[in-house]
């Protein structure tokens, strides 16, 4: 058992007892990765969704049993389920989303050229991701954006590692096919 695992165990025990410092530690460890994954899945209002994810983690913390890797996969499972639920509720009440270009322009940047290049890269990357199947999106984003291992991704998605590897290969092949000509990533 590594020191990191021991810290996690201590934090998990304290979090179950309702300690605030433990929840701060867990939040600082996992919140950026979860928010990155939610943004990669083009979630609407990802910050609000992140708060909902942690509230649900608090409610179900007593049901969890495992180590640090299992906990990370478990939290991403909750995040994915919350994302799907939100997408379903949004589908019942459709809204007009604001485009990425508008959001980037609204954020403001000193260098207009850099902003344009960044927005183009974001748009191309999101377009390439959006052309994948939902499972392939999950695999690519959890592996590349959230940094989970094959085993953790398998646990988060409820599949076996072999299926995750197969999804990964197919996702890369689809990305290669779907990339527009003349655009190099």
């Amino acid at each position, binding site marked *: 058992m590594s020191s990191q695992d021991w810290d996690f165990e201590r934090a998990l025990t304290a979090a179950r007892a309702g300690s605030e410092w433990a929840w701060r530690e867990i939040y600082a460890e996992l919140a950026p990765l979860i928010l990155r994954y939610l943004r990669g899945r083009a979630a609407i209002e990802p910050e609000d969704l992140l708060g909902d994810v942690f509230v649900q983690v608090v409610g179900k913390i007593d049901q969890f049993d495992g180590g640090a890797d299992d906990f990370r996969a478990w939290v991403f499972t909750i995040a994915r389920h919350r994302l799907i639920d939100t997408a379903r509720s949004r589908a019942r009440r459709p809204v007009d989303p604001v485009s990425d270009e508008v959001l980037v322009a609204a954020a403001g940047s000193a260098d207009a050229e850099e902003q344009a290049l960044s927005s183009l*890269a974001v748009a191309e990357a999101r377009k390439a991701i959006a052309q994948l199947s939902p499972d392939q999106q999950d695999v690519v984003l959890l592996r590349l954006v959230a940094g989970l291992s094959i085993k953790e991704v398998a646990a988060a998605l409820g599949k076996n590692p072999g299926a995750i590897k197969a999804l990964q290969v197919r996702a890369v092949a689809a990305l290669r096919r779907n990339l527009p000509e003349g655009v190099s990533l």
Partner: protein
Amino acid sequence: MSGYGVEPDEMKKATLVDQKIEALLGGQPVAPMDAVATELAAFRDALGGAFPLPVISEAIEDAHLVRIMDAVATSSAASTLVLQSARPTPVQRLRARLSSKVAAATFAFTTAFGGAAYAGVLPQPIQDATATAASFLGIDLPSSSGDDPDSERPNKVADPTPDADRDRVPVGADDEANEDDDARTDGTEDRKDDTQDQADDRQAGEGDGSEDGDGPDRDEAGDDRDESEDRDEDERDANDDSAEDARDEAEDVNDDARDGSEDRSEDESNDGDPNDDSLDDSVGDARDEAEDATGEMDDLDADDRSELEGSSDHDQD
């Protein structure tokens, strides 16, 4: 190329590509970097640049932590409630323990005592008391006298006579009351006759003294009295007739109720189910009808009495 159209090293190539992809996605160096690996590495870097690790602002973090701690407080309060409700109080534990002990003792006592009572080996007073108590529950136990417990069991449905007698009692009481009423009416009539005799005597005395003056008036008064007597007799006859009719109806209803209850009790006793509630209901309904008819008759008699008393007062006046 093999006979199946598959290159001999295709599986090896696939495994190699898979390993490269795994290494690239895991952020490990891949050698040699072929075109696919290069393209995939570029995509990985671009994706990392497109979705940089976000820095969560303090405001958002504080808001999230407030929500988290609220959820913690709610969850701990709910778990405390669950624990408190799941843990029995000392009174509940004592009650459960006592209930189980009482149930066990009752079962043991019933089993042992019931067996002895069924065998009839209990002492005489206890056996009799047990047989009597069990007979109320429909259980036949031998008594010490050796009599048939069925004969001792008070079976109100199989033997409707008490009920019929009880039904008959108000009617008989009404008959007695009617007889009293008749006696009272007779007394009134006697008093009326006495008053009439006294009036006749007075008229006769007055007639002896003054034949000339009030002769026609006395005749008119005598005619009036005769007419009032005739009206009283007619009203009495009519009231007596209506009272007798109501009494007959009540007796008919009582007879019908008795007949019906007897028939039904015979049927039930033949069926072997003496404790049927429907029979009690039928007898109760018939009894209610009879009591209603008797009540009507009483009301009618009361009206008769009031009318008769009114007429007698009028006559006395």
